[in-house]
């Protein structure tokens, strides 16, 4: 039989992500900062709140439940982040939107409207506005070294999967 506390523990991470999404929406409306930064801030705010709640009720819940609270919140927020990120930069979704706008479009027309040239310009613009790279005398340099860590991590995973 599930107790009231069990139900709270099960639903808390999902409810927390819902609160984070509302917080993200508030940041998006009232803050001029980049959407990614808004996402990170909303994640960290609610995550610290979860840690406080977990600490407060830690005597009444098991280690497994503590792990569940933290892990489930992180996973669910990751999925929410993917949903938001896909709206910004997903190529697959961009192509679908293009076909939605121009039903019956051919491959040639798609490539005319959206090609590697456009993608390069968009990505450079976004990387620059996101503070990942900076421009100096018509050259680009890395501004945020964390992105190199992420790049190397994905490269290792790709090597494990494909090479």
């Amino acid at each position, binding site marked *: 039989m599930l107790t009231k506390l069990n139900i709270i523990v099960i639903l808390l991470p999902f409810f927390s992500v819902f609160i984070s999404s509302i917080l993200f929406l508030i940041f998006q409306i009232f803050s001029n900062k980049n959407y990614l930064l808004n996402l990170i801030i909303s994640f960290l705010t609610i995550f610290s709140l979860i840690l406080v709640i977990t600490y407060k009720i830690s005597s009444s819940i098991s280690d497994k439940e503590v792990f569940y609270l933290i892990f489930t919140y992180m996973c669910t927020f990751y999925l929410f982040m993917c949903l938001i990120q896909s709206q910004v*930069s997903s190529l697959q979704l*961009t192509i*679908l939107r293009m076909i939605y*706008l121009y039903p019956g479009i051919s491959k040639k027309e798609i490539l005319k409207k959206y090609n590697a040239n456009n993608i390069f310009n968009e990505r450079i613009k976004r990387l620059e506005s996101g503070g990942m790279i900076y421009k100096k005398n018509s050259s*680009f340099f890395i501004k945020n070294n964390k992105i190199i860590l992420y790049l190397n991590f994905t490269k290792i995973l*790709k090597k494990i*999967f494909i090479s």
Partner: protein
Amino acid sequence: MQVILGYLAFFLIFFLLQIFFFRLLRININKPSIILFFIIISIIIGSYFFSIELLLNLIIINLTIICFYTLVPGIINHGPGLEIIDLIANKKINKINILKKYFLKSKVSKSVEKRLQINISSGLIKLNRGKFVLKKNTINMLNIFRIIKKIYRIKSDAY
């Protein structure tokens, strides 16, 4: 600690299973049908052996599988943004003109064609006499995404 180790063992086994299927058998087990299968099995098990511990385990396992589903395509299909970072950081190509030249020569320059192929193979669009048409489910999905985009005031790179 024991709890964390137990879950780590599960992630490792699941990760190795993915690699085994993908590298040796060329099968991508990250498919919506497989995820749905796992969820249905979990619901059956969860409702049969009604216990809080099992319920938590099943939610964690299913969430891990769904997260893998979103993570793996990003690893296999290297994105254009990461390609630019790779060219700047590792290959030390900084000049914008040379950077663009290398980018257009790379595999990523074919990403539009590749994504079109993925859209066809995953049944999101159909090719009718050289013209692309969306399926009804895809239109519904795009409408939901449009609402999300509008609510959260997200600006996409294009379209």
